[in-house]
């Protein structure tokens, strides 16, 4: 059982550019924390610092009540699962699982017991004699998970563990990892660039961009109440629609289109300002008497349909029930559920009226 506290972490590889910038975070005991962000934003670097594989340039890392900055990886009581599995190619599956225990001088009978228990949990008992080369991707990932759990660590670190699997297997393994978390109750930190994975697997999510935390919260919090434009566009698929323009007389004047926003909360406070108006696809509805827009792309998914609408120079995506029979080039009337609309500052792209 362990908490993790990161205090004002900065990391630079070249003493010029900060890869991780003033990172502060507290992870609760037994929590499943997901770190999500685009490729290259510093997720792996952060995880590797928690593991002890990289040293923070400044700042403190605490695991429970130990300052671990000077502690080598092997003494941090953590286990890590890598994207490429990182199984030792020259050892059997059994030896891959047992290696860490052997180095720690665990008695042989105990090793056998623990390896078999882990193999039971992950259903890899039949694979123990194989070499990693003889395993499929899904099997390799199970073995990598097994190598992590035999050591019974206080913290699990996952670095994009499912990225190399095909879509179907990924969904399956996602559920398995979630189940493993419930079973073990151990603190887990999970890195991914896939926002859907982050939303479905995490107790809380940290959204990272360019080494800077954008927002921390539960999946629903960050979806419904994004702190800035980056979070709003990164979380959700298709992403939130954005229209930039000036507020005049309660309407948004964007390029070649004007939208009446007089019903929106706090709109009078924005009078005369340049803002970014954000609305999620599911909050655009077909109506009898709304704004009339032409359909440029029609994507029926079966259970629902994505309509791409031309709004002036920009495209708005609406998510509507599948039953509507709409043709390409039709003009449709839409209204916006303004209670769900977001406004962002044009300058900073921060959310306005964010609480």
């Amino acid at each position: 059982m362990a908490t993790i506290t990161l205090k004002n972490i900065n990391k630079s590889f070249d003493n010029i550019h900060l890869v991780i910038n003033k990172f502060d975070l507290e992870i609760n005991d037994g929590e499943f924390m997901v770190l999500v962000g685009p490729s290259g934003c510093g997720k792996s670097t952060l995880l590797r610092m928690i593991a002890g594989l990289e040293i923070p340039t400044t700042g403190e890392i605490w695991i429970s009540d130990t300052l671990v900055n000077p502690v080598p990886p092997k003494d941090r009581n953590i286990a890590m699962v890598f994207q490429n599995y990182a199984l030792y190619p020259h050892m059997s599956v059994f030896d891959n699982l047992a290696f860490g225990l052997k180095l720690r001088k665990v008695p042989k009978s105990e090793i056998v017991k623990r390896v078999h228990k882990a193999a039971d949990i992950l259903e890899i008992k039949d694979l123990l004699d194989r070499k990693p080369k003889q395993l499929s991707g899904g099997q390799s990932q199970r073995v990598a998970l097994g190598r992590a759990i035999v050591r019974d660590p206080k913290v699990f670190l996952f670095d994009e563990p499912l990225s190399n699997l095909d879509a179907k297997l990924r969904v399956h393994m996602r559920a398995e990892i979630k189940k493993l978390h419930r079973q073990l109750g151990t603190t887990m930190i999970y890195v991914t660039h896939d926002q859907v994975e982050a939303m479905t697997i995490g107790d809380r999510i940290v959204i990272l961009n360019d080494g800077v935390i954008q927002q921390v919260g539960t999946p629903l919090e960050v979806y419904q109440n994004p702190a800035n434009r980056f979070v709003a566009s990164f979380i959700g698929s298709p992403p939130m629609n954005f229209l930039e323009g000036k507020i005049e007389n309660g309407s948004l004047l964007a390029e070649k289109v004007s939208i009446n926003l007089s019903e929106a909360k706090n709109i009078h406070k924005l009078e005369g300002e340049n803002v970014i108006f954000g609305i999620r696809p599911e909050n655009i509805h077909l109506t009898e008497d709304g704004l009339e827009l032409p359909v440029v792309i029609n994507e029926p998914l079966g259970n629902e349909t994505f309509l791409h609408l031309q709004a002036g120079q920009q495209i708005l995506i609406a998510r509507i029930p599948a039953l509507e029979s709409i043709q390409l080039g039709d003009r449709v009337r839409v209204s916006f559920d303004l209670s769900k609309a977001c406004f962002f500052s044009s300058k900073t792209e921060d959310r306005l009226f964010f609480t």
Partner: protein
Amino acid sequence: MFAYPFLWMISATLKPEIEIGEIGLWSSNFSLRSYKDVISKIPIGRALLNSLFVSSSVTFFVIIFGSIVGYALSRLRFFGRDFIFGVILFTMVIPFQITLIPMYILMVKFGWVDTYLSLIVPGMISTFGILLFRQFFRDIPQALVDAAKIDGCNDFQILFRIIWPLSKPVIITVGILSFMGSWNDVLWPLIVIRVQKLMTMPQLVTIFKVGGQAEGQLGAQLAAATLLAIPIILIYAFFQRYFIESMATSGLKG
């Protein structure tokens, strides 16, 4: 075709002296007389053991030290690493003739002349070996090294328990090259060894040929040369098979 000179040499060593000039391979008078001559005139058996001992030791240390330095240069981060690598590269371009005399003076100062140490110690570090190891180690996925660190390995355990088993092709390549290099070296032993019982095989054979003991007998000279070549051919033949095998089986998964 390319085997002909070699076959001719073997056949010549078996022929009586007067027939050696003939181009044909076969003679009805084959005998081991030339070999007996060689063995009776010089301590070639002892020289064989000397050579085996010296070349094996050199090879052993080249692999150990080369892989340790190669590991440091490829996997550890420390101040001046790239500079040190540059210096090591630079020493490769210095012709050995330049270091020969200073090295000899060093051997004299250490009192190592006419000892095995002078044959082994100067050959223990091979820049070429370091280079090959470094290059090969760089291609081993970092995640494997990271996983080993988390599992509890120190740097030596990472090198010998994780990296070595994955590096058989380069270990064997460096091994063959340094063994052959050490085995075939004549000049250096001629400089530092003067007592016959410490002489290496090529040194002894060279002295035998040019030093007059062979008394102009071509058969005996060729027999000595054949004896010199046989061990290296055996070693090469054995490891080459293994080398190709390990190349084929060590396919690392990224």
